[in-house]
């Protein structure tokens, strides 16, 4: 049955082709069914594959054809179905399907052909992500890797009349490309040293490489992850990516794209375990991003921007987990995060939909009455991301944090600070949106009402998953051998676990840390609700001091503009106007002019005086005789010159 793996990416590809080519002919209903149906098909096959992997406990590689076969190496177009990829398949197609269903309502105002264009891009996005996850070597992964970059470009710039959106789309693609270059160099390095890019072969032969080589490969791969998974310093595209329609954000942040970096490192776990420097670097970047993005999220007023920075921050936690060796924890957090972040984005979309494209939370408030389902599900999502037991976010985040404590206690305390900020900004967002009184303008003709079932149904499903999703990873402190996910993924991470023995915390410490963190998170939540949930909350006040810096994202975009883009701009103008025009082409034209001038001067030799002609004749004869007898010497001289 697992030969059917090719169907998983094929369904979305067919969906893309039908909706893309038939965009002028299909009705919106037909488009919606085809696009969602194709993802559902992929999901069903994924379930079959998953159950098979679960049953047999082993993975398999399927080669479709030879992609590149050349002197020195061969790259098959092959898919690898194992624990890690089948789990990701479920996340991608499952959540992808819910987002598709949701989009059929959310995008309903669009013209039929734009509606079809939207779903064509969405299907292509899922297709690319599936290639990324299914690939059995780094080159196939790279195909998906660049593919999701392309699709994010197309979807962020979906409303293409708006110049700012186009700019955001372009920024996403270019920033991703910077990372892609790192990824590509890593692949070249592998091919140069090992002659293969196939996972199985790389992982089994990697021990023969020097530490320098492994470190270089892993660092370069991580550059790719920084771009794709929005880590410092390549994170600025992700918040701007909010320009796309809201379901796109849900897709990018939850099911596809940004989790690619985590998947890649989890897949390459052996390499990272063998390169402690790189692994430490991953942990540091992850921790820094987690905190940094959280501070920005504290002062954002756009409902989607808060969620965007929250994603950047949560991805930081996942990288922290990978960096401290908690591979299972990182993958676990990818999964729970996919549930609650998809929920939160779709919930935000429901709010935006109800308020006719209002995204500023200062103009919201008191929406819990008008939007009961959205309110409840959004609240559940907030609790899950804040990490209150027994919601899903608690278990996954706790696993990462505990591993961090075992690794380096000081890192744990910083990470804990970020988690408290998370609770605070999420409940600031929740309170400003749903509590208090409505601060926007009311329009009698368009009363605020709850979204239709096709939008609320995905919210409900995701809410349930956000609540119970954590139970697949119950830590040993509560019950021995109850961590289902760890057992399931064990074969993938086994080589790493054999190399490094992780120290486990004693149960007393773990209980203590858990208890304190839960209490502090609850305090943060109450504080946020108290500050921002009251009826007369003052939102007009301008930020000052450090708050202003946070609200302006620490001016990082401005910094990049001044330090990289502007100098590059000046340099290229200089090249165009000075170097190209005057120096290089000037030299070429100079040669031309010289010949012209020389010809004019030379013409004067034709003076008509016989004496001059005789002189030239005799001189020429002398020169010729000299050459005649010395040609070997002259040739040698020429040879020496060149």
């Amino acid at each position, binding site marked *: 049955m697992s030969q059917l793996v090719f169907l998983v990416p094929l369904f979305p590809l067919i969906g893309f082709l039908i909706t893309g080519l038939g965009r002028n002919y299909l009705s919106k209903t037909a488009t919606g069914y085809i696009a969602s149906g194709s993802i559902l098909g992929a999901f069903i096959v994924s379930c079959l594959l998953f159950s098979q992997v679960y049953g047999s406990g082993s993975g398999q590689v399927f080669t479709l054809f030879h992609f590149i076969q050349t002197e*020195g*190496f061969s790259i098959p177009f092959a898919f690898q179905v194992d624990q890690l990829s089948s789990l990701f398949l479920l996340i991608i197609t499952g959540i992808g399907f819910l987002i598709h269903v949701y989009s059929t309502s959310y995008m309903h105002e669009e013209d039929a052909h734009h509606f079809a264009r939207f779903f064509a891009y969405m299907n292509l996005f899922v297709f690319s992500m599936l290639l990324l996850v299914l690939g059995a070597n780094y080159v196939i992964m790279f195909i998906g890797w660049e593919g999701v970059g392309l699709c994010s470009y197309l979807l962020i710039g979906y409303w*293409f009349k708006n110049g700012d959106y186009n700019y955001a789309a372009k920024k996403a693609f270019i920033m991703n490309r910077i990372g892609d270059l790192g990824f590509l160099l890593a692949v*070249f390095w592998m091919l140069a040293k090992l002659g293969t890019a196939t996972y199985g072969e790389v992982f089994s032969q990697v021990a023969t490489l020097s530490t320098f080589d492994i470190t270089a490969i892993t660092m370069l791969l991580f550059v790719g992850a920084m771009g794709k998974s929005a880590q410092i310093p390549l994170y600025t595209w992700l918040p701007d990516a909010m320009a796309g329609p809201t379901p796109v954000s849900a897709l990018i942040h939850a099911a596809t794209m940004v989790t690619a970096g985590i998947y890649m490192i989890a897949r390459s776990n052996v390499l990272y375990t063998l390169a402690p420097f790189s692994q430490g670097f991953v942990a540091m970047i992850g921790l820094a991003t987690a905190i940094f993005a959280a501070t920005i999220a504290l002062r954002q007023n756009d409902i989607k921007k808060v969620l965007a920075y929250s994603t950047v921050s949560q991805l930081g936690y996942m990288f922290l987990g990978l960096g401290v060796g908690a591979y299972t924890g990182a993958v676990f957090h990818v999964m729970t995060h996919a549930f609650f972040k998809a929920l939160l984005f779709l919930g935000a979309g429901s709010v935006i939909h109800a308020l006719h494209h209002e995204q500023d939370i200062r103009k919201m408030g008191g929406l819990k009455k008008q939007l009961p389902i959205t309110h409840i599900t959004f609240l559940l999502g907030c609790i899950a991301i804040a990490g209150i037991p027994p919601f899903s976010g608690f278990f996954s985040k706790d696993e990462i944090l505990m591993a961090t404590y075992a690794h380096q206690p000081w890192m744990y305390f910083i990470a804990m600070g970020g988690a408290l900020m998370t609770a605070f900004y999420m409940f600031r967002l929740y309170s400003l949106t749903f509590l208090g009184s409505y601060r926007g303008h009311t329009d009698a003709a368009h009363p605020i009402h709850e979204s239709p079932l096709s939008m609320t149904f995905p919210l409900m499903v995701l809410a349930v998953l956000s609540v119970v999703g954590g139970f697949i990873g119950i830590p040993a402190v509560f019950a021995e051998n109850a961590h289902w996910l760890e057992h399931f993924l064990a074969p993938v991470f086994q080589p790493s676990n054999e190399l490094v023995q992780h120290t486990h915390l004693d149960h007393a410490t773990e209980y203590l840390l858990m208890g304190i963190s839960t209490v502090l998170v609850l305090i943060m939540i109450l504080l946020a609700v108290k500050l921002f949930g009251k009826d007369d909350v003052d939102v007009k006040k301008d930020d000052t001091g450090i708050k202003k810096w946070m609200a302006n994202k620490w001016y990082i975009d401005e910094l990049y503009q001044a330090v990289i883009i502007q100098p590059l701009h000046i340099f290229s*103008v200089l*090249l165009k106007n000075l170097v190209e025009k005057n120096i290089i082409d000037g030299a070429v034209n100079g040669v031309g002019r010289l010949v012209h001038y020389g010809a004019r001067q030379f013409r004067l030799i034709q003076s008509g005086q016989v004496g001059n002609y005789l002189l030239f004749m005799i001189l020429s004869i002398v020169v010729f005789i000299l050459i005649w007898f010395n040609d070997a010497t002259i040739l040698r001289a020429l040879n020496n010159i060149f």
Partner: protein
Amino acid sequence: MIPVLLITLPIFSGLMAFFMKGQSVKSWALLSSFAVLGISIWSLFSDANLLSYSQAWLPSLGSRFDLTMQDGLSKLMCLLTALSFPLVLISTQQNSSNQSPHFFALMLLTQAGLMGVFLAADALLFYFFWELALIPVYFLCSIWGGEKRIAVTFKFFIYTFVGSILMLVGILSLYYMQDTPSFAWSSLTANASKGIYPNWAFWLFFLAFAIKMPIFPLHTWQPDAYEQSPTPVTMILSGVMVKMGLFAAIRWLLPLFPKATEQFAWVIVCCSVIGMIYASLLAIRQDDIKRLIAYSSIAHIGLMSAVIFSGNASGMGGVMIQMFHHGVNVIGLWIVANAIEQKLGTRSLSEMGGLAQKAPTLSILLVVMSLANVALPLTNAFVGEFLMFNSLFKYNVWLTAVAGISIILAAVYTLNMVQKVIYGEVNSLTEKATDTPFNVNFSLVLIAILIVVMGVYPQPLLDLTKDAVTQLFAQQ
């Protein structure tokens, strides 16, 4: 047999076209180009004995009329030449230049010259065709070109002609250096292993080829020439003619001067890599869509020239398939640029915008061409670039890292172009635009299909060029 047909057919139909009148010449030229394409496709499957032809030519000089499709590289380049002419002729039906019989006559003669360059197995014959390809182009540009055509074409002609003369000097000096003077490729290359060819002769050949490619800093004729030439000619210039330089380097320079190549590779590779970044940065600053594509093309050629002089076997295979793919893709971009110019009467990017609303089909096809231009995986350009970068990486890690920046810059200028042309609001100029006629869409869709099919399944072309690569490395 086949090589002779590939050359004589366009010569014959070209000469006939001079005497034709009215619209029939269009069909005549198209018919001829399809016949050539058919023969070229036949060559891929035919017996080896049909692939070469030899006849006494200038016996007193020891030069023969030797034409061979000696390996997959020749086949591929002939296929590119044969494929590009129908594409160009179909897609530019509406251009004002395409109304004169002389235009078609000269175009067909150009095709004959190009075929000759890719087929000649005799150095003097090679030189003959090298010039034959240039002369009709000179007339095409100076008669149907843009405002500054006379000055620009003159510069282009003199620049490349200087290169050709240097090459002729090189050919003649090698001729006399052999024990039994001969112009035959086989004899010339066989003597190369004796090490009798001096390094300065390497430079004579190299300059001729480098100007044609072009390699930085010998490139300044190119953007001007591309801009001022009538677009059908620009397509041939950048799609096929620059491949003459690359092809000649692989076919003649490397086998003739293996030592010098090794010795001077670093200079050439450095120039090429500098050129990649340099041309990419200049491409970002261009407002004229034709000049943007011109600089983008220089950047892409830079990678190929770098790998030709430094590459390993897989890299060389990458160069060869990329020569084909670059030709197809850049013609695609020119077709789009031409369609836009025909529609809007301008090439200035700052005056465009909103074409996605007015001309959706053209816009989608522009996006596909652009993706191929940035070598996105699953487009044809990716495989070539992957193999070439991989090979450059083995030569020098740091150069690869620098050259890799061009991957990022390519995204910058290509997406800039896409954004300015098709996105944004419609303005007063683009308001009246409509979608492109069938002939343009047909050519573009054909190219788009090639881009995707070759991108997903690149192995057949790699297999085709395998013998050329093997032979090249066997000699060294």
